[in-house]
């Protein structure tokens, strides 16, 4: 076999390309890195990202068609070999779901009755936007997806994205025809969550591994968290609606609890963006004046930055008004 570059080797050394360019551009890269360290959400970077996904989205959309077809075929072959065990698993799941259906039907009856009594106020209807996943960061340290819906379709920054199993992430960049979802396992992801059964409020933090973690603090009764408990979004911060399925507690250590996510990132091809408007706050007589002021701040509708959601979980408890959805009434 002819070896590539042999003839170049002979005259190598005569012509040394200047490495000044590489050095200079490396310096520029490092400066960019440092500046994104100090101003991660700098508007210039944000605009550049949005412009990039907007420009790339037609190409990505075009590419995702054959890719989707191909992985559909490959998936079908895979399924063929596992048809028996899958059948068994589906049968079991079906049985469990039937019980849930019964429960849901009876609960719906209760809700109708309560609605007639005017004792129940329905949460404001969410306006979901369905979108295809046309891009995905295949990086070790960046976990995000690009979808083919944007500002034109009513997608807003901070909206929650769910697939048929549970929450996928939240929207961080929006251009007119595309948007980026920051997945829950990204290192930048912080989502206020609520652990059912133990009634613990916490912050779900991405760790760049498959399982994000909830930091356990004494203040928030973190020691009550046990493996197997369901984790849902808490609605704190006024950006995400309460009650979206996030996952199940997998393991608990002294400092943190790891969470098995409900969403399956390897399978989600269609996601639903939940464009949710928080209800206006009416201060209840129960809430002390200070608490209601804090609550008003918390649930301020259309509060701009997801960053606002971050600080909120440090507050000791969620004010009663901030929970408009399913987990409320006892």
């Amino acid at each position, binding site marked *: 076999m002819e*070896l*590539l*570059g*042999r003839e*170049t*080797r002979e005259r*190598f050394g005569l012509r040394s*390309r200047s*490495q000044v*360019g*590489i050095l200079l*551009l*490396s310096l*520029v*890269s*490092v400066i*960019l*890195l*440092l*500046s*994104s*360290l100090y101003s*991660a959400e700098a508007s210039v*970077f944000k605009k*550049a*990202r949005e*412009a*990039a*996904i907007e420009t*790339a989205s037609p*190409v*990505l959309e075009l*590419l*995702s068609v054959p*890719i*989707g077809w191909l*992985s559909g075929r*490959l998936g079908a072959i*895979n399924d063929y070999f596992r048809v028996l065990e899958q059948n068994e698993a589906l049968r079991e799941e079906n049985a469990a779901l039937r019980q849930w259906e019964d429960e849901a039907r009876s609960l719906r009856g209760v809700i109708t009755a309560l609605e007639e009594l005017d004792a129940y106020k329905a949460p404001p209807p969410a306006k979901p936007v369905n979108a295809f*996943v*046309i*891009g*995905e*960061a*295949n*990086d*070790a*340290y*960046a976990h*995000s997806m*690009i979808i083919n819906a944007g500002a034109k379709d009513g997608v807003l920054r901070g909206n929650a994205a769910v697939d048929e199993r549970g929450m996928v992430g939240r929207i961080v960049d929006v251009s007119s025809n595309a948007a980026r979802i*920051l997945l829950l396992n990204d*290192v*930048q992801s912080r989502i206020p969550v609520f652990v059912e059964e133990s009634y613990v409020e916490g912050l779900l933090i991405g*760790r*760049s*591994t498959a399982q994000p973690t909830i930091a356990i603090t004494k203040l928030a009764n973190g020691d009550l968290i046990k493996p197997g408990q369901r984790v849902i979004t808490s609605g704190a911060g006024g950006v995400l609606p309460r009650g979206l399925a996030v996952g199940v507690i997998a393991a608990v250590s002294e400092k943190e609890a790891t969470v098995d996510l409900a969403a399956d990132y*390897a*399978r989600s*091809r269609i996601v639903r963006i939940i464009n949710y408007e928080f209800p206006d706050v009416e201060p209840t007589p129960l809430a002390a004046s200070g608490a209601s002021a804090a609550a008003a701040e918390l649930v301020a509708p259309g509060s701009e930055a997801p960053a606002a959601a971050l600080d909120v979980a440090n507050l000791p408890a969620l004010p009663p008004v901030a929970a408009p959805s399913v987990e409320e009434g006892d």
Partner: protein
Amino acid sequence: MSARADVLVRLAGAATPAFLGFLGVILLASPIRLAGGLLPTPIIPLIIVYFWSLYSPGHLPAVSVFLMGLLHDLLSGGPIGMWPTAYLVMQQIAISQKAYFLGRELRVVSIGFAVAAFVVSLILWFVMSLMTATLLPIGGLLWQMLLTSAFFPLFAMAFGRLHRRVVIEV
């Protein structure tokens, strides 16, 4: 062929590596899930940077490498400047080791790529851990680099043919 068309064809030939690099970055941003998401997508732009920096750095100037990295960062949503750094380090490694690798067998060049990819992963991991102020896992990154190295010979052979036919000979 008129002189003008000749220049155009030459230009297109010279731009092929950069074009392939951008295509590689776009492919990296598309939802390819090898083996149902079990295998990470190989980082083809890294192969392209290494290959052309070794055999014909004149066809892949540092500016193209930088722009490839920038596009990668913009599409993946990671901190800006991370992948330009990684790709430029790769280019620097390849150019500095040129004297050794030119004219060697593919086996040797592939091992060289694997070592360079390992160094790049260490730098990426270090920078990202520093930036997030947490000790990030490095396993996933090494696994992705290992897979990329496994794909290297295949791409190197294809690029070798392309290089002879399109980039130099027109």
